[in-house]
């Protein structure tokens, strides 16, 4: 039991270290820095209204609205997505299996051959 607990702690430590590294990378990335107003909570109104070169004003958008529809419950869409993912995994698997078969060294075929010996 102690062994399992220790292993679990090691796994959690590794996850924490990798997670902290990724967090630091993303928080300091150029995508993240910039307009401080854009760092709002999902659903929070964030003014991204600006003017284009022609002077036409863009309407303000709500951060987090993009692609919101895909989070709404829809059994048909969900099942279709799950089926699509299964097919993708299957396609990758079959491709790798075929590549491995093509790369693998060919085995020698053993055949029994009758030799006619001169009497």
């Amino acid at each position, binding site marked *: 039991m102690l062994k399992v607990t220790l292993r679990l702690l090691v*796994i959690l430590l590794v996850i924490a270290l990798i997670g902290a590294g*990724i967090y630091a990378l993303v928080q300091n990335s150029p995508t993240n820095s910039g307009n401080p107003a854009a760092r709002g909570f999902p659903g929070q109104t964030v003014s991204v209204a600006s003017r284009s070169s022609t002077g036409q004003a863009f309407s303000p958008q709500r951060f*987090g609205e993009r692609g919101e529809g*895909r989070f709404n*419950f829809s059994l048909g869409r969900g*099942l279709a997505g799950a089926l699509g993912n299964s097919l*993708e995994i299957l396609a*990758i698997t079959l491709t790798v299996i075929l590549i491995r078969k093509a790369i693998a060294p060919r085995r020698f075929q053993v055949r029994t051959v009758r030799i006619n010996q001169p009497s």
Partner: protein
Amino acid sequence: MSVKTKTNLAIDCAILIAFLVVNNPALTGLAVHEWFAIAAGLVLIVHVLFHWDWVVNITKTYFKKLIHESRFNYIVNALLFIAYIIVFLSGLMISRNVMQTLGIRLPASPAWREFHSLSANLALLLTGLHFAMHWKWIVSATKRYVLAPIHSLVRRPVMRQPAVQPVKIDKSK
């Protein structure tokens, strides 16, 4: 050995189904998607725990004597592990239900949303590779522990034949 293989197969099937469900938020809705992902993450940790000896052995011998396939397998698994951590972390960063329930307010940013989407796609690709690397085991374990029991249930019961054993007859007597 067979109990371990059965347990591994059951956990792997659960992970695959959980992955397909979590990867499609439309199947469950956002709130269930978030909580279900946390449960799936815990099952993934159990999966790593079950293969602890393999991880330790390969880590120790990675730069020593090791066949290329094991090396490639190790890299795929390590990348998959990292991809899942990114999916999990970015999911928590853009979470609306889990973090709110826990009373934690995180500074959300569009970057995390992009990372969540990207890492989910990467995880899907690596899951396919992981699946392919263990294809032989999956096929043999499924045949033995899933298909064979079903087949024996469906098959008509056959009258048991008495065992026949060859007996040596001493002709000299």
